[in-house]
């Protein structure tokens, strides 16, 4: 049976659904239009689902509605209950579900090709559809197992440290070559063993690809898996000749790819070097032994309160440590007290701060920081030279001047905040022992104008607020 062309209105409905998804992303160009965009997305999804249900003979409607109710219920409750600091692992978990859904759909299409209209006149599956199906199941399986590992690392259920297997590049490239070779062979022989071997190898390589990648490289990984989930949907869209799936797949695929690119650029690292993994492991191992002792100054909450009250302008640089300490709410309270006393307060966000793109922005928004007080790196960096106080809370590598001066540093070339130009720097850190993710020492600790505030970020902000109110 060849593809019977569906009626024109059906094709039109899927097209509208695809256009609504484009509008959903378009809305995100500004917070003001974003909520309307999200509603376009929901409408697009509703159109796609309803169109599919009324144009197919549905033999099992109660079961389908049951599956939607169970899945939808779980999703809805999770989305309502999840803490904003847990957003990176939630997104990773959601990616794994898209990947698994793609695997299941491709498997169902392989087992029941008539239902999908992909059989040729000879009763075999069309060779083109076999390639699409093979790609769909492979990308879906990589997305699934990769996202499960990313989820475990982000949720702290598995060590964030890179796990390095010997010969890992050879194993990975070999597995990848085997997958591609089998997909090619699948076009001439549609035996089940080929299909299931592709699936198994793809699950394996998703796992192998992500285990060597360390915690702070997760923004790139999460974006990349986001991209893969899109390409998986697109591959299945080709199989089903479905416009909505193809448009969506292309949108999501490009979105994830662009986010990965932005993240890599913000770290001045190539995508290949991030994916190859192991970053920070060697530097941390070698740096431990020969560390010179340099003098640094310790400050107190009272010092910080006093200096900031006297200041005209304060720029706050938050990082992953703020998320770990859940310090965003008390930080905003501190900023409120300062603003009442006539101090100008701004927030500076580095593109790779946190564990996923935009992580810090969401946490600050949750703490009701107005988004027009939050600035991107290139918009605020020139202001540090005229700023009285730079207040660093849970960030480290993104303020390290070695990125500008030290050619041997692993973070050389990464764009960083010029906090060293501010008149006074307060640096909240749990202890002097730890170094940032890149495993390099930070000259900012030892500058004359720096005072180290050694404490838990939340506790320190609470103490500063108390001191400010006295």
């Amino acid at each position, binding site marked *: 049976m060849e593809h019977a062309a569906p009626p024109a209105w059906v094709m039109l409905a899927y097209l509208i659904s695809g256009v609504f998804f484009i509008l959903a*992303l378009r809305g*995100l160009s500004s917070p003001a239009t974003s909520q309307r965009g999200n509603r376009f997305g929901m409408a697009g999804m509703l159109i796609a689902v309803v169109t599919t249900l009324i144009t197919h003979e549905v033999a099992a409607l109660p079961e389908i509605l049951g*599956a939607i109710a169970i899945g939808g219920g779980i999703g809805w409750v999770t989305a309502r209950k999840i803490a904003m600091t847990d957003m990176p692992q939630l997104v990773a978990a959601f990616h794994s579900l898209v990947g698994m859904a793609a695997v299941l759909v491709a498997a*169902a299409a392989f*087992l029941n090709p008539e239902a999908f209209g992909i059989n040729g006149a000879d009763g075999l599956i069309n060779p083109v559809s076999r390639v699409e199906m093979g790609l769909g199941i492979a990308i879906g399986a990589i997305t699934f197992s990769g996202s499960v590992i990313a989820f475990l690392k982000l949720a702290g259920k598995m060590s964030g440290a890179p796990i390095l297997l010997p010969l890992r590049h050879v194993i990975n490239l070999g597995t990848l070559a085997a997958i591609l070779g089998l997909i090619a062979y699948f076009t001439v022989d549609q035996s089940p063993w080929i299909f299931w071997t592709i699936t198994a190898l793809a699950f394996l390589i998703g796992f192998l690809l992500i285990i060597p990648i360390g915690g702070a490289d997760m923004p790139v990984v999460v974006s990349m898996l986001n991209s893969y989930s899109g390409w998986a949907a697109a591959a299945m869209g080709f199989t*089903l000749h479905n416009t909505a799936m193809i*448009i969506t797949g292309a949108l999501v695929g490009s*979105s994830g790819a662009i986010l990965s690119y932005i993240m890599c650029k913000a770290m001045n690292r190539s995508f290949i070097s991030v994916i190859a993994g192991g970053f920070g492991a060697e530097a941390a191992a070698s740096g431990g032994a020969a560390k010179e002792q340099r003098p640094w100054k310790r400050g107190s909450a009272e010092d910080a309160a006093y200096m900031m009250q006297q200041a005209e302008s304060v720029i706050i640089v938050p990082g992953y440590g703020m998320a770990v300490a859940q310090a965003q709410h008390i930080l905003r309270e501190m900023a409120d007290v300062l603003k009442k006393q006539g101090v100008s307060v701004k927030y500076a966000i580095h593109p790779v701060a946190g564990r996923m793109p935009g992580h810090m*922005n969401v946490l600050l928004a949750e703490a009701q920081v107005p988004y027009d007080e939050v600035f991107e790196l290139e918009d605020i960096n020139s202001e540090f030279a005229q700023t009285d106080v730079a207040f660093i809370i849970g960030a480290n590598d993104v303020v390290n001047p070695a990125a500008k001066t030290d050619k041997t540093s692993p973070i050389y070339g990464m764009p960083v905040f010029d906090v060293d130009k501010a008149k006074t720097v307060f640096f909240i850190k749990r202890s002097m022992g730890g170094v940032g993710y890149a495993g390099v020492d930070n000259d900012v600790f030892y500058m004359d104008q720096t005072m180290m505030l050694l404490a838990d970020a939340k506790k320190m902000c609470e103490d500063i607020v108390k001191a400010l109110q006295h």
Partner: protein
Amino acid sequence: MDFISILSIFVMACFVGYYVVWSVTPALHTPLMAVTNAISSVIIVGALIAAAAGGSPTAKWLGLIAVALASVNIFGGFAVTARMLAMYKKKER
């Protein structure tokens, strides 16, 4: 639809995606990931076709599980995006 028309739609959509995503403000990159995650669950269309068809009980059950997984994403993805977007406020003045 023949393969070339589908491929054309795909290639054009990649370009649209490229320009639309670059216009997204960096402050909204987390909601962007959440919403792209929700819309990529349009794969539910394939899951529904598999679940709806008679013929292969195994394929039907795989389809039903896929419908449930995609539904988690659709409801969860849009709801969490809405929750995040509602938090972004301007300075009240």
